[in-house]
């Protein structure tokens, strides 16, 4: 356990490699990939330059909803260095429609999604034409010369308005703004009771809390804008793309364009972040491919930051209506969730499934008997939404953790006590939830008591009381978030039962090179997570080879031919297990060869510290020596192939369920509404840890992103549907100075569903922190009569909420 205490400048030292087995897992290694990633001396897609390569620039609609009446490309065609200008109509025979892989209901409605719009644009920024030129500057200049005439159509932007009668239609041809309606009901599913009855009972003799929460629209804001290069020359077409999903992309490109999959190679070189934002098959990728194929020249399309913010898919954007029923002594008896989820203008790869992923998480760590989740997926004239760090689970966690604080406030009790009364006790695992998931393990008590200790919960509560007492202009609040999430996406059969279009397995191969080096090929395509280091540690441990001898290859469908890529905190809990299985197969194959070479029975061969030896003797060979012997293949056992390389594909039996307790103290300046995070403590339980430094990094980044949703980030559109937060001047991201020093620690309750006991940590911080911060701000001003403040809790919103509130005491004295 590495507790990074409140000691600035405290750096975890990299421990030197011993090379010996058994000491790699759990070692805080610095990431081997960081040198090239931090300095940028690597192959980002935009760094790729090919002979004769053309540069593309998109012509984009300034209107959120309009009919395209004409496009005049002549001026652009005639501009210097321009090779071609192509419109949606020009490419329409080839462009098909971009895929949605998650038809959540059989009758889900979805408009065709052309890469370049043909007749109608349905969000501001949608591409209508593309310019190919010999320089990037010429392409950009010429794009401004394309003269598009539009006839504006009525726009629908607001979710709640979109489902009212007579609202303008985002896609008039669909005849409705509703894409799908999806329901989970514990009584119907047989996983629990009827929620309406629970609510009716609570109305008579208990507590009913009803709230409406808004999950604002967020922009994933990955560091590297998206970029695609397509080389159509040669037998196969090669696409380099800044994507999280080279494998899925390849399959989808084949389906969309009709090019045989075997003729497409997709490479995700180093990718600068994604957060779900690059889990997509994009109009830009398809357009680049079509133009390159048409012009028979390599083409590159790199978006600007503003384009990225306008058109790369957005995240969240839901209205949540919640009804929580509880007994008078604060035991939750039921939860009803009624969601409106903004799809935006189209259904991207998993747009429609994102809110559904949340359906299984609203009950969180609590055991209550009745639950109903209802979600309406709605079209509006905005960029489409899709996966963004947490995808469905932050929304669910926010809702339930806010409701638990509301329940505590209603009861006048400590929010931790109310949670403890309702959570699944350690001895109750494995536990089947009201949403039908089986939680294999968890220890909410341990994580919570450690967090309380690190936080000085009692001390801060005292200070809070004192500040209230003396009417201090700066009030203190404490927010709690005891979260869990489902990681390790996902058992393929579960995905099938949810109508998702693909499986959830992952592949790995291990190649034992004759010089003793080891190549690990993973289907999990890293884009900043540190797979190269973590996978090397796993293999070094498992095979007893030096960490430095392990090379991890990923992201190229010709090298890693099989994969499901990286999202949903799945890499370690699924891809890492495939690596373990491949390594174990290598050892088994080597055992056969070793027995033959050492003239022993395979059953007598022991494998320790990278050496296969005959039990009870000093006869033995290292795995690396066997690799060389197999390469020469001069002396192989009869009928045994000369290879100890191995492949494995792992399909998990269950999700994994990391959890943790996050405690946040905020100071609220009641004179200005400014919020400052005074202390943030999180104790996460992510199971066994391969590399504590990587875990720490994921937690820190996740916290920053979750805190940013609570306080800073919001994609805002004007009445016409133009995104007004399309630069970082207006879309606020916090930097290090805006964030507190995080105090982190861990408890370790291993997952019982995989051989490493790991769970996943990629999204934990994001999921847990948003409600912790919001609860803390509200806790600081609740006594002034403030019940809720919409996210992001800007100073203006906080100040105004205080102005408009009726102080609790005053209200009571009336």
């Amino acid at each position, binding site marked *: 356990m590495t507790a990074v205490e409140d000691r600035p400048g405290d750096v975890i030292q990299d421990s030197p490699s011993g090379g010996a087995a058994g000491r790699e897992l759990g070692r805080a290694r610095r990431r081997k990939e960081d040198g090239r990633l931090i300095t940028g001396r690597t192959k980002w897609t935009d760094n790729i330059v090919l002979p004769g390569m053309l540069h593309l620039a998109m012509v984009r609609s300034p209107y959120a909803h309009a009919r395209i009446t004409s496009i005049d490309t002549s001026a652009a065609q005639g501009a210097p260095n321009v090779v071609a200008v192509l419109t949606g109509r020009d490419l329409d025979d080839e462009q098909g429609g971009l895929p949605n892989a998650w038809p959540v209901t059989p009758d889900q409605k979805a408009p065709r999604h052309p890469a370049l719009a043909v007749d109608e644009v349905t969000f501001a920024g949608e591409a209508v034409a593309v310019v190919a030129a010999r320089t990037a500057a010429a392409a950009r*200049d010429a794009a401004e010369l394309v003269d598009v005439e539009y006839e504006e159509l009525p726009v629908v932007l607001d979710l709640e308005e979109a489902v009212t009668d007579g609202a303008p239609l985002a896609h008039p041809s669909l005849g409705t703004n509703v894409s799908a309606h999806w329901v989970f009901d514990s009584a119907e599913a047989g996983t629990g009771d009827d929620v309406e009855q629970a609510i009716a009972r609570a109305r008579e003799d208990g507590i009913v809390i009803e709230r409406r929460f808004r999950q604002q629209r967020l922009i994933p804001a990955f560091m590297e804008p998206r970029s695609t290069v397509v080389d159509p020359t040669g037998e196969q077409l090669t696409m380099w793309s800044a994507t999280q999903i080279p494998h899925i992309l390849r399959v989808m490109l084949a389906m969309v364009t009709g090019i045989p999959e075997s003729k497409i190679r997709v490479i995700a070189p180093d990718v600068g972040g994604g957060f779900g934002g690059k889990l997509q098959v994009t109009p830009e990728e398809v357009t680049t491919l079509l133009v390159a194929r048409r012009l028979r020249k390599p083409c590159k399309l790199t978006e600007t930051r503003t384009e990225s913010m306008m058109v790369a898919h957005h995240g969240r954007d839901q209205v949540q209506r919640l009804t929580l029923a509880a007994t008078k002594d604060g035991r939750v008896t039921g939860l009803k969730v009624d969601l409106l989820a903004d799809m935006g203008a189209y259904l991207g790869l998993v747009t429609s499934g994102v809110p559904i992923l949340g359906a299984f998480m609203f009950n969180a760590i609590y055991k209550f008997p009745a639950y109903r989740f209802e979600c309406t997926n709605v079209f509006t004239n905005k960029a489409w939404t899709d996966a963004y760090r947490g995808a469905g689970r932050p929304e669910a966690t926010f809702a339930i953790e806010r409701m638990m604080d509301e329940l505590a406030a209603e009861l006048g009790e400590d929010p931790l006590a109310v949670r403890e009364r309702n959570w699944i006790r350690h001895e109750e695992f494995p536990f089947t939830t009201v949403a039908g998931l089986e939680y294999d393990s968890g220890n909410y008590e341990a994580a919570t008591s450690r967090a309380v200790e690190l936080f000085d919960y009692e001390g801060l509560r005292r200070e809070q009381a004192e500040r209230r007492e003396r009417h201090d202009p700066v009030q203190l609040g404490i927010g709690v978030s005891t979260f869990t999430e489902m990681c390790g996406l996902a058992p393929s059969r579960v995905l099938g039962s949810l109508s998702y279009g693909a499986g959830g397995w992952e592949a790995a191969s291990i190649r034992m090179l004759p010089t003793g080096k080891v190549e690990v090929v993973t289907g999990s395509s890293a884009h900043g997570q540190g797979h190269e280091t973590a996978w090397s540690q796993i293999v070094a441990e498992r095979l007893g080879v030096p960490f430095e001898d392990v090379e991890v290859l990923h992201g190229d469908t010709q090298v890693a031919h099989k994969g499901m890529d990286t999202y949903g905190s799945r890499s370690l809990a699924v891809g890492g297990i495939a690596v373990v299985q491949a390594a174990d197969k290598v050892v088994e194959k080597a055992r056969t060869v070793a027995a033959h070479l050492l003239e022993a029975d395979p059953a007598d061969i022991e494998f320790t510290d990278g050496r296969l030896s005959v039990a009870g003797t000093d006869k033995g060979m290292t795995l690396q020596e066997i690799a060389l012997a197999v390469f020469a293949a001069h002396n192989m056992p009869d009928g045994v192939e000369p290879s100890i390389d191995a492949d494995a594909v792992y399909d998990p039996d269950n999700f994994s369920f990391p959890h943790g307790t996050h405690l946040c103290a905020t100071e609220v300046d009641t004179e200005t509404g400014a919020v400052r995070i005074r202390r943030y403590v999180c104790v996460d339980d992510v199971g066994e840890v391969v590399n504590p430094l990587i875990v720490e990094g994921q937690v820190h980044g996740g916290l920053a992103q979750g805190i940013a949703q609570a306080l800073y980030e919001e994609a805002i559109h004007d009445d016409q549907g133009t995104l007004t937060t399309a630069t970082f001047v207006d879309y606020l991201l916090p930097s290090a100075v805006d964030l507190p020093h995080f105090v982190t620690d861990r408890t370790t309750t291993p997952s019982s569903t995989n051989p490493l006991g790991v769970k996943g940590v990629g999204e934990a911080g994001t999921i847990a922190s948003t409600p912790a911060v919001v609860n803390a701000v509200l806790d600081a001003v609740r006594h002034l009569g403030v019940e809720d403040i919409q996210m992001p809790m*800007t100073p203006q919103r906080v100040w105004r909420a205080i102005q408009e509130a009726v102080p609790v005491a005053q209200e009571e004295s009336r």
Partner: protein
Amino acid sequence: MIPTAFEYASPTTVEEAVAALAEAVSHHRDVKVLAGGQSLLPVLRLRLAAPELVVDLSRVEGLRGVRDDGDAIVIGAMTTHDEVMRDPLVNEHDLLLALTTRTVADPQVRHRGTFGGSLAHADPAGDLLAPALALDAQLVIAGPSGRTRTVAAHDFFTDLFTTTLDEDELLVEVRVPKYTGWGASYQKFNRVAQAWSIVGVAAAVKSDGGTIGEARIGLTNMASTPVRARAVEQALVGQPATDEAIRAAVADVTAGTQPPADANADADYRRHLAGVLTRRAVLAAAGA
């Protein structure tokens, strides 16, 4: 994004620079001066401006640095924010300017962005306008054929992103009177550290034994130009440096303001903030 194509000149003297500007203007060519580029380059890259000629001042000697000139200090237009905030003369005689400059953006921007560029850019949310106004800075401007003129900060800023600078003129240096021994505070209110001010209040206060003798107050982003809170300055004279007295004296701080409204703050909220921040700035500047 990529800016539109432009010609580029890189003069080495003020005369050459002004001549390049004059030449372009006489041919009706759209010309822009490039200082630190921290505001101009974003504007060019977003294609909000498309000059035909860019005159880069980075090689012009003598536009950079701070010197003592008797009752004033003189800051070259090309002195970077980082140099201004660290300069001993600025810290000794115009602490308000040093403190304000520390709040501008982040270290990278402060190493490139310049004092002159900030004033010439005249962004109402820019932080350095308010102290320049409050301290009665004088801006020295060079024009064609060796012409120079000096304009008070009060007359220099005329509107949003607009000053009295002509297209063929160059801001050369800024004379800031000395306020040696005055206390100072800049209260910058923003949502994240490297964001622009929602409201900022610059206050320099001369106090003696707990009584305010003189005060100078400038407001950032409370109108299309920086605003001098003269009524408050007068009300503060002779007041004890106590929370109560200052609270009363700053009541009129929004007189003469016309605050903008945006996603961060509407006009009412800005007016409210101006009051709170002015009180805090004065209290801090008075050492209370």
